[in-house]
């Protein structure tokens, strides 16, 4: 019954200050459904965040943020009514419930008394230690200074360094008319560094790296070499780009590196497999379950259960336990990612992917940690297989048009492959492809599955949530590379 701790903490932090009890929640749910509707939920959340920034070799700014409130949602068929309140009191909840249920005013239903909510035991994915208070300010400041010093010592061409360290803790509790009562206490840590390097001949370049996740700050700071590796990565990207040549333009074989380049999966297929788009038939993957969407070598998973990762959850924001979901198995599309609304309307099961940015936003199907299983090829063998192409190892981010399936992702560290060898570094370039066909062109999958370091943020309909990605080295036989050199 490890979940008990979360529930107890959540009640203490969210409900008790306003003298709200679980039976008040049951009553508010009944009120929310009093003029009809199939489903209602109350989402309570408190978040606290602290951030420190080093610039010009000094820790010159820090900030602390508090946010808190309750969101009330009422579903009636495909309709959703939503309102929220920053006041977690009986009155605040009822007022939000009254506003949310106006959606149902035209189809009067029956008085829905007798809603009972009950917590189920769920394994906890992370420590409930207060991540904001766990490490002394002095230790944080020293860490940022050490990062700065390491970057400057690594290469004399580094002349600007900005480092930041963010800790956040979110406490949530959700109660729903389907009987759900669940809570979670979620830590988040993010350490990042940006360096600007100049060659003294008028050329300036930048490099960015970092990491973190739902882990304790102490554990990250105590992992030997971890923070140093962020610094080294940022310096390496900046310095390499100082000698980068114009990137090639046109279609060519592309070897996509392991780890963060998994943004390819996130954009190319991840969004297209979210339940809402498929219910509405607006995804290029709509109605394609059971069909081939990738080569045999590709198996793609979305899992909220990976310890410490940014996208990991004990329960999602609707109280559904996080799960491991197979999206593509040996090239065949197996399933979508669902929240409760879209699962109900499609006659499927919720998959633990109902997520929301905050109490002030509606939940939607979202990815957690999306990754491809390792294959059998040595990464060196994959590179050696390409006569002329691109080796892209680091990316800034991407975007997808889920309807026509076209997606982009922008490389910020890439090299030419010539005669099976990695040669010249080339400038950043956008790569563009077609989601439903790109994975059918994956001819080799590496044996080097790696995950991102923990910086991923996914945006959808104006809502941002933290996500993780992972991927082994892949060979894509043809992708369009948006360089300037023909």
């Amino acid at each position, binding site marked *: 019954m490890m979940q008990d701790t979360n529930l107890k903490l959540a009640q203490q932090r969210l409900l008790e200050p306003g003298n709200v009890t679980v039976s008040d929640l049951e009553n508010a749910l009944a009120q929310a459904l009093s003029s009809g509707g199939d489903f209602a939920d109350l989402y309570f959340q408190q978040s606290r965040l602290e951030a420190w920034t080093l610039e010009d070799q000094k820790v010159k700014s820090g900030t602390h943020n508090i946010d808190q409130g309750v969101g009330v949602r009422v579903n009636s068929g495909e309709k959703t009514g939503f309102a929220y309140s920053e006041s977690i009191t009986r009155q605040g909840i009822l007022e939000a419930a009254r506003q949310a249920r106006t959606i149902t005013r035209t189809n009067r239903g029956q008085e829905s008394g007798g809603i009972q909510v009950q917590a189920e035991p769920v394994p906890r994915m992370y420590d409930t230690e207060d991540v904001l208070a766990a490490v002394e300010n002095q230790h944080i400041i020293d860490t940022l200074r050490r990062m700065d010093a390491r970057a400057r010592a690594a290469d004399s061409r580094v002349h600007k360094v900005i480092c930041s360290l963010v800790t956040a803790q979110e406490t949530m509790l959700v109660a729903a008319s389907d009987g759900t009562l669940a809570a979670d206490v979620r830590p988040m840590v993010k350490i990042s560094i940006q360096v600007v390097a100049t060659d003294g001949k008028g050329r300036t370049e930048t490099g960015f790296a970092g990491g973190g996740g739902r882990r304790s700050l102490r554990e990250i700071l105590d992992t030997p070499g971890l923070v140093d590796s962020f610094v080294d990565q940022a310096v390496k990207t900046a310095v390499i780009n100082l000698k980068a040549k114009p990137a090639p333009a046109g279609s060519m074989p592309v070897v996509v590196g392991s780890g963060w380049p998994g943004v390819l999966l996130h954009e190319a297929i991840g969004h297209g497999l979210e339940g809402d788009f498929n219910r509405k038939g607006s995804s290029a993957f709509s109605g394609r379950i059971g069909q081939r969407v990738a080569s045999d070598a590709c198996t793609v998973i979305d899992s909220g259960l990976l310890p410490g990762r940014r996208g990991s959850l004990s329960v999602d924001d609707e109280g559904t336990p996080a799960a491991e979901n197979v999206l593509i198995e040996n090239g065949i599309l197996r399933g979508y990612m669902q929240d409760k609304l879209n699962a109900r309307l499609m006659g499927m099961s919720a998959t633990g992917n109902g997520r929301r940015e905050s109490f002030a936003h509606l939940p939607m199907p979202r990815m957690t940690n999306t990754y491809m299983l390792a294959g059998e090829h040595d990464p060196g063998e994959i590179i050696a297989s390409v006569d002329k192409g691109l080796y892209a190892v680091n990316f800034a981010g991407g975007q997808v048009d889920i309807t*026509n399936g*076209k997606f982009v992702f922008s490389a910020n560290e890439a090299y030419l492959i010539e005669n099976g060898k990695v040669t010249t570094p080339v400038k950043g370039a*956008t790569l563009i492809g077609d989601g439903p066909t790109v994975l059918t062109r994956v001819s080799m999958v590496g044996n080097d599955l790696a995950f991102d370091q923990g910086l991923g943020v996914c945006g959808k309909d104006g809502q941002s949530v933290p996500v993780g990605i992972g991927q082994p080295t892949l060979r894509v036989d043809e992708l369009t590379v948006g360089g300037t050199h023909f």
Partner: protein
Amino acid sequence: MQRGESVNQEIKTKIENAKSIVAEVLETVKRLGAFEAEVVYSQGSGLAVSTRGGQVDTVERNDDRSLAVTVYLKKPDQQGLSKGSASTAVLDADAIALSVEKAMNIARWTEPDPHMGLADPSLLATQFPDLQTWKPQTVSADALIQRALQAESAARECGVSVDNSSAQAGEGFSVYGNSHGFIGHQAGTTASASVVALAEHDGAMERDYWWDASRHLAGLMPAEDMGEQAACRTQKRLGAKKLASGSYPVLFEAPVAKSLVGHLLQAISGSALYQDASFLKGAAGQAVFPSWLQISEDPFVPGGFASRHFDNDGVQTRARSLVSDGVLQGYLLSCYAARRLGLEPTGNAGGAHNIEVHANAGDLPALLKQLDTGLLVTELMGQGMNPVTGDYSRGASGFWVENGQIQYPVNEITVAGNLKDMYAGLQAVGSDTDKRSKIQTGSWLIDKMAVAGNR
């Protein structure tokens, strides 16, 4: 109510309450030993609806408040001030007290910076003309739903399906006060609507949309026109091809040309300059564009999307020419950035105000004629712009144009170049000005870019 917009009584009361909270927090931090301090209170509320399949999809109410406090401490034997800040969306006495304590505590740990601190009192705003950003409007879910349904049905009548039709309206204000005794507010109303349409041909789907924004619902384009526009844009995208890679002139349609102006504003912002993260570092006084180009900034446009009396430092805003005869006239500077760069603040803490790029050419058909043979870009994807170097590479879709006539839609291509070259190679700015946001420009014709396709 001198310092700000003319607004109705209800909002006046809210603003007065906010001002007393701001004044109280300023007094508290002074008492706790802050050398200087500034406080922002903002509040907004609104109603948003969406429809789909002739039915209501969502009705969302929002109501947000937040308070942000920044304190500056002067420590013995140290040059400059140390800064700490905190914000809270919970506005009870406990949360405000905790935020004040956190901001003070953070400032005890941060290191001093000689450039830190409030604006010089002589720069603070003293002129508060009515900017007409507050347009009284009656907002009801029914009226918004009606509008969204009308737009949706107009789109469907054109033979497309509708993914989403939405309408929203809201209002909000913010109060800024600092320990120099300045306290002022800015208030505004908003309204916007959009239609996202889907069309299918030979098993291939396309999606496009149209939207509008205004200071009030009555200022939006008619719902039927919006639906038709969304439908028409979506249908035109069907049957897209890729393109042979090559170097072509590129015409950026006004809604996407705005992003090229956005990159300019980012590059001339103070923080990008002092962080050495701008491809336009030191470009003030230089010809960045051809000599016919004029770009102006006017914070006093009546009802403008970014009309403001004072910036985030409380500094009086000014109308000015940003680019004159192609020459960059200056930067966008907060007090802090200005001190670091050894320049004067420009009233741009928080960003640019209303920006207008002046046209030198006719409407879109005239620009297509001038393009002759090349690419018309109507959508851009991804974040492929390097602010340090100006290197530009983004996913695109649009239309292939020959002899000034649109031939067929294209997608899954990229357009690439360097923003410095793109700006210098600007051939024309159309009169088809997109007026839906703070950046107002017509379409941009650029002489030559690298286009990557599948051949």
